[in-house]
């Protein structure tokens, strides 16, 4: 009978402890004198007022549905209430682009497969050989779903892919391939072999010096000019390659920053044990260097995720492009705010998840061997 008593006593003390310092903090920091009190109250008023206006637009005055494409109720509330009906009507176009309507369960499933792959990869228990197998199987399934032509699925050429799956494809392959490439570039830039070092430097500086948009345009317009007659490389693939090559140059400098932070003693200890260059790099240097640069790495990954939207320049239907496309129908012209809000939420969800995960990972990896 003693145990529950103890627990109650504990909770009681804890909450009273939690409350007192909180109140003290508020008094000391927000209401310490008449000026601070005035500023606090003024700011509180402005914040609450802002929240209230947003809520009235987004919730209280919002129009949630309309009859067919009769958007008059929306237009009447224009500027006062959001027209979420446009999302209800257009969300499939935004999410899947011009993928055939009756087959859109396939890209939907592909999205969930991607999410599943992300979750599995985030779990450290899977950080072994199995992860490669899981990804191989996952990507094969995604490919089979998107293209079809197998298991009785009709074939859909990738010109018709669009929306969120396309964004996820560009971002996932972008990160998954640019990251390893960037490691080789960063190592190359520090190599003792002059040819390899020069090549890495030229590559990094050249690619970093031009905007992604120019690379995408070059990949889609100029590159085909150099190909022999009759040979053509898929537009999606060209854009994907451009994104990979571009991101790799940026990531390489991030990785190099990590490599430079590793003390000389670590290299010497590894050398003195007889480890080869690659053993030393893989087992000693990279694990430490990459851990150090998790924040800027993830920063670049997040940038890459959002930069995939630049493929709209060359006419690929990623999430942002299909959102824009959804607004072209005359009935829905002018509801851009709602549509862009919707896609922003989607972008934010992915980027915020990356950011939170990286922060957890940092803490997890740091426990144990902090000096």
């Amino acid at each position, binding site marked *: 009978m003693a145990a529950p008593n103890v627990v109650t006593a504990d909770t009681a003390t804890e909450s009273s402890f939690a409350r007192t310092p909180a109140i003290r903090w508020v008094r000391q920091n927000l209401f310490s004198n008449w000026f601070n009190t005035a500023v606090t109250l003024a700011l509180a008023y402005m914040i609450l007022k802002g929240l209230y206006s947003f809520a009235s637009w987004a919730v209280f005055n919002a129009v949630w549905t309309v009859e067919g494409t009769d958007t008059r109720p929306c237009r009447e509330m224009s500027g006062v209430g959001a027209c979420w009906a446009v999302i209800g009507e257009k969300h499939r176009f935004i999410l899947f682009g011009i993928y055939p309507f009756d087959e859109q369960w396939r890209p939907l499933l592909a999205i969930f497969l991607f999410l599943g792959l992300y979750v599995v990869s985030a779990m450290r228990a899977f950080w072994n050989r199995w992860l490669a197998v899981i990804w191989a199987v996952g990507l094969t399934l995604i490919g089979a779903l998107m293209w079809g032509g197998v298991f009785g699925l009709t074939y859909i050429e990738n010109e018709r892919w669009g929306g969120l799956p396309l964004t996820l494809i560009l971002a996932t392959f972008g990160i998954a391939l640019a990251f390893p490439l960037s490691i080789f570039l960063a190592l190359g830039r520090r190599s003792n072999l002059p040819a390899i070092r020069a090549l890495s430097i030229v590559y990094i500086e050249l690619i970093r010096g031009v905007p992604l948009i120019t690379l995408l345009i070059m990949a889609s317009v100029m590159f085909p000019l150099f190909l022999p007659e009759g040979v053509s490389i898929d537009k999606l693939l060209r854009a994907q390659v451009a994104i990979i090559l571009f991101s790799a140059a940026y990531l390489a400098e991030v990785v190099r920053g990590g490599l430079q932070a590793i003390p000389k*003693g670590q290299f010497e*200890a590894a*050398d003195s*044990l*007889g480890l*080869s260059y690659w053993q030393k790099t893989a087992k000693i240097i990279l694990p*430490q260097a990459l*851990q150090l640069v998790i924040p800027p790495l993830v920063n670049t990954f997040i940038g890459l995720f959002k930069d995939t939207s630049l493929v709209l320049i060359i006419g690929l239907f990623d999430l942002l492009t299909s959102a824009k496309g959804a607004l072209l129908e005359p009935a829905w012209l002018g509801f851009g705010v709602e549509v862009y809000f919707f896609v922003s939420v989607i972008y934010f969800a992915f980027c915020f998840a990356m950011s939170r995960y990286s922060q957890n990972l940092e803490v997890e990896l740091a426990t*144990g*061997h902090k000096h």
Partner: protein
Amino acid sequence: MPPAHSTAKAANRPMIEMRDLNKWYGDFHVLKDINFTVGSGQKVVICGPSGSGKSTLIRCVNRLEEHQQGQLIVDGIELTNDIKNIEAIRREVGMVFQQFNLFPHLTVLENLTLAPIWVRKVPKKEAEEAAMHFLNRVHIPEQALKFPGQLSGGQQQRVAIARSLCMKPNIMLFDEPTSALDPEMIKEVLDVMIELANEGMTMVCVTHEMGFARTVADSIVFMDKGEIVESAPPTEFFAKPKSERTRLFLSQILGH
């Protein structure tokens, strides 16, 4: 006495031979005509003022530094630019650093088994058994699953010694192994080194621990300004140093 006999016989086989070794850092002549031989089972202590080239000398032995002139033969293999030779020598030569240089992202046990598993291709289980054996020998088997950052300096240095021993080296190099330690931890590290010396390991040790040198060393080498000034057995070295520079150095480090 068979052990003494075999030591004496083995001592004839040179483990490290430097012949007219020279090294420069740019214009700076850091090692000047070094002639230096360490026989199998011999313990050599190197001392000398800071900046005299002691670290550079022993770091040439496992090619952490490259010499530019002269010959260096380690365990019968001549050190050239051939990476195969360099790696072969590094497998046979253990090194202990002033700053320990343990791998902070690996546990103590992983620090010890990494090289045997990847370089010597020892099966993991076997490597772990050997690692525990050597942790016992440096008297800290209970720390196997900790990370280096959780250990004291003395414990870290003993792990570093065990890490080198796990590669079953023929030669051990020590570069001021106790200089970064708090005074109360110096003894625990020196004790481990004395045990190792008594087991017949070939050792080259840069240190200013003259008590250690007196008990363990077969010969003491004094370096100054990139030269070997004097080399003698401890009794002779301390009793009647030949050069003025040695006398001055000894009076400085034994003086207080």
